[in-house]
């Protein structure tokens, strides 16, 4: 089932371009992290760059751009939808609550007795 040699060489040319784009994307990600912006904006930028890189890997390296299968589209679509639900809903329940959550001052602080315990 070897592919047409011409087609494969075209693919290889694309792979090289994508490799370059990924390298650039990595550098941009790191540089962007040094920008002096709010946490929310910083997260947004980082995720946009990461998503772009991920899309390149998925579409070109994993050949998703060339697949023509309704079932695959369905599976991946459902996965994306449920993944989104998984990411968002715990967040929403966290912010929508009855009563007040009391965080104690030492929450998430380093363990006091770390040296002795280990």
């Amino acid at each position, binding site marked *: 089932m070897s592919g047409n040699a011409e087609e494969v060489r075209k693919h290889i040319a694309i792979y090289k371009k994508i490799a370059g784009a990924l390298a650039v994307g990595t550098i941009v990600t790191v540089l962007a992290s040094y920008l002096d912006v709010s946490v929310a904006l910083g997260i947004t930028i980082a995720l946009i760059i990461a998503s772009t890189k991920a899309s390149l890997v998925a579409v070109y*390296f994993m050949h998703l751009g060339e697949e023509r299968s309704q079932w695959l589209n369905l599976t991946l679509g459902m996965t994306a939808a449920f993944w989104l639900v998984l990411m968002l809903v715990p967040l929403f329940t966290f912010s929508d609550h009855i009563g007040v959550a009391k965080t104690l001052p030492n929450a998430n602080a380093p363990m006091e007795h770390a040296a002795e315990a280990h």
Partner: protein
Amino acid sequence: MEIPYTVAVRPDTGLNNVKLGIWLFLASEVMLFGGLFSTYVLLRMGAVEWPLGAEFLNIPIGTVNTAILIASSVTMVMAYASLKLGDFAKYKTYMLATVLLPVLFLCIKGYEYYEKVQHDHLPSHSTFLAIYWTMTALHGIHIIGGIAVNGYFWGPGSKMWHTKPAMFENRVEAAGLYWHFVDLVWIFLFPVLYLL
């Protein structure tokens, strides 16, 4: 007894069994890491204070590791392309790179872990470190799996090229899909843990 469509594409679904199988597996892996990313978001939102990645993690090292993994993804796809061109020697070269690069990644990661232990930055130290250790370790286990699979297809498994080339190509494609996914996870993990 023959199982149809292992390698041949079934017309009405547009897929062969192995490709569909690996994509389904990857869908479940998306949900696995999704659970962990969700955990990260929830814990961070609920934390009184959350350290900047740079406080505990070495960004240059992380960047190098990211480059290594992306490079291994490139060599993986080149290995597959070489097979499709019928160039077995080139395949072996690229596949070897795809096996060795993540070994280097793991060595560097191992060094990072070692440093952390030296400074008593263990998972029990804080929820940030807990999620860092857990997510990178789970990702690391997936890398080890990938090294094993790719190593097999570089080494003893590559004999199949001489007897059943179409099936071998098919298997390497599946291994490639898994490997690209492992790279994909790191593409998100690196900025989330190190840079934010």
